[in-house]
């Protein structure tokens, strides 16, 4: 069974279309990275999946209708929104008590173990914690829930590099332990590249790219071209070209690896580079301005 199944998903706020007929199917056990520029509709898409927003079209999350069955769905789903939302008056111990009191799949010992690795005191109020500590607390609460679907909207915003690394490692460990599905959005794409199994680019409420990471690696290739072979490489129609330390780096989509290898140094591009290329071309195509990059 697909974990998330959507057909013709649409959501408009007044005249602004946030989701423009999205078809989506996320199988159980995948780790999907949702990448898009600001205002692309990422958060709206997540809100719709989480039952926080009404929508048009068909949507089933773990077999449920999120809009009418949010409370039941939340037994199997947990999420972190993109800003600190823990109530500022709450004490750490109260947060633990409360989640333990309402969530059947919350493992308090696990949350305590997460917290023990931080400098967060049990009696502190959320308002007394730093921004990073609030995020740590929230992650500790969420990661201690044995959920089937985990939705993370900019989960590591405001965290230092050390904790971000720790977080993604523990996310990965957890993922391997269980049959969990994870949907994550972040602007720090390079940090999650090795974690993802699936990738989706979204822009102006539409899906621009939707592929597995294996497809991604097979499909996109980056070529460092010496000046003498530049013309030959350009003839293969790269989707993007940039300068890197005085050398030309060309990005190719669906071009034979052997053919490219003869022209220079090949490597797998970063998600960020492909994102820039695809989004640039997409913007060019939709606005019909033909931006030359």
């Amino acid at each position, binding site marked *: 069974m697909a974990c998330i199944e959507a057909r013709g998903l649409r959501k408009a706020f007044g005249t602004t279309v946030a989701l423009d007929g999205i078809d989506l199917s996320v199988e159980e056990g995948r780790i999907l990275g949702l990448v898009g520029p600001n205002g692309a509709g990422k958060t709206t898409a997540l809100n719709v999946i989480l039952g926080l927003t009404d929508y048009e079209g068909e949507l089933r999350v773990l077999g449920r209708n999120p809009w009418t069955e*949010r409370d039941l769905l939340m037994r199997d789903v947990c999420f972190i929104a993109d800003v600190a939302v823990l109530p*500022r*008056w709450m004490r750490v111990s109260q947060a633990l008590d409360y989640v333990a009191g*309402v969530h*059947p799949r919350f493992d308090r010992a696990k949350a305590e173990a997460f917290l023990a690795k931080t400098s967060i005191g049990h009696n502190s109020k959320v308002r007394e914690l730093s921004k990073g500590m609030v995020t740590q607390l929230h992650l500790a609460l969420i990661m201690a829930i*044995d959920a089937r679907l985990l939705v993370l909207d900019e989960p590591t915003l405001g965290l230092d590099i050390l904790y971000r690394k720790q977080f993604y490692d523990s996310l990965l*460990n957890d993922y391997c332990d269980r049959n969990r599905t994870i949907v994550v959005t972040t602007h720090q794409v390079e940090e999650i590249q090795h974690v993802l199994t699936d990738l989706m680019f979204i822009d102006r409420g539409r899906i621009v790219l939707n592929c597995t990471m294996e497809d991604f690696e097979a499909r996109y290739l980056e070529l460092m071209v010496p000046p003498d072979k530049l013309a030959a490489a350009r003839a293969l129609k790269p989707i993007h070209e940039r300068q890197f330390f005085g050398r030309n780096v060309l990005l190719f989509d669906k071009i034979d690896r052997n053919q490219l290898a003869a022209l220079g140094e090949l490597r797998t591009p970063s998600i960020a580079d492909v994102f820039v290329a695809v989004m640039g071309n997409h913007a060019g195509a939709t606005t019909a301005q033909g931006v030359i990059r």
Partner: protein
Amino acid sequence: MSTQSNTMPGFFDSPRVEPILSSTHPFMWSLRREVWEYRSIYLAPAAVAAVFLCGFLVTLGRLPAKLRGVEGIDPVRYREIVAQPYDMIAGLMMLTGILVSVFYCVDALYGERRDRSILFWKSLPVSDLTAVLAKATVPLLVVPLVTFATAIATQCIMLIVTSLVLLANGLSVGTLWVQLSFFQMTILLLYHLFTAHALWPAPVYCWLLLVSGWARRAVFLWAILPVLAIAGLERIVFHTSNFAMLVGTRFIGATHHAAVQPGDVFPTNPMTHITLARYLTSPGLWLGLLVAAAFIYAAARLRRDRGPI
């Protein structure tokens, strides 16, 4: 993709075993979280009672002199003198309860949207109806109970201290206890709090909750303006004030349904005669509760669609 699953094949990818789910009490914990957040629910009555108690202890010195002339001669006057501070603290608690409830209701569904914590609450398996019901329980059950308990605790302290003062002055403690009829006063206070301060004005509190869940700012204004507008319009168009009367009786209309009182005495006066059957059969009560239920349902539906502001 991980080394773990390579070294221990089949262990981690064994079919998902449903873990033993821990038992949960979403309603109880939602209610508890309201009391955590709105500490004024118990702090305000406690503070008022503490201030009152100080005032009472100061005036206690003059009590023996006042009682000496009337004890055994004028029981009615005697009761008036001893009961007055007990009625005062009961009245103060009622007033505090109303203020606490009103301020609570105005903020209950607005505050969680303003501080964005609604996203956290909604990330947990608690339905909007459970959350709103827990919030409605605060003015309808928690505040009456807290103000009742505070009033009784204060009155107990007052009674003990007064008894000691009378003993020290050679006055009869027995007369005090008989005349005060403390137990009866307690029952009447509890009865009055629930009939007149919780169930009867329930639609008012639930209306405030509904507006609190709807308004993007100035909740109090939005709660009052429509009422004033409708009442004003009715006055201008029909030259009547039925709507204003209807709303008005929600604040003060319960007493003559709930009890019969000789003259204009305080609701906890032992002369008060409870008419529970008449109260429970008055259409006003049930219509009011029906409207309150409709407001609660609407507030729950509204909360589903509401995000942070």
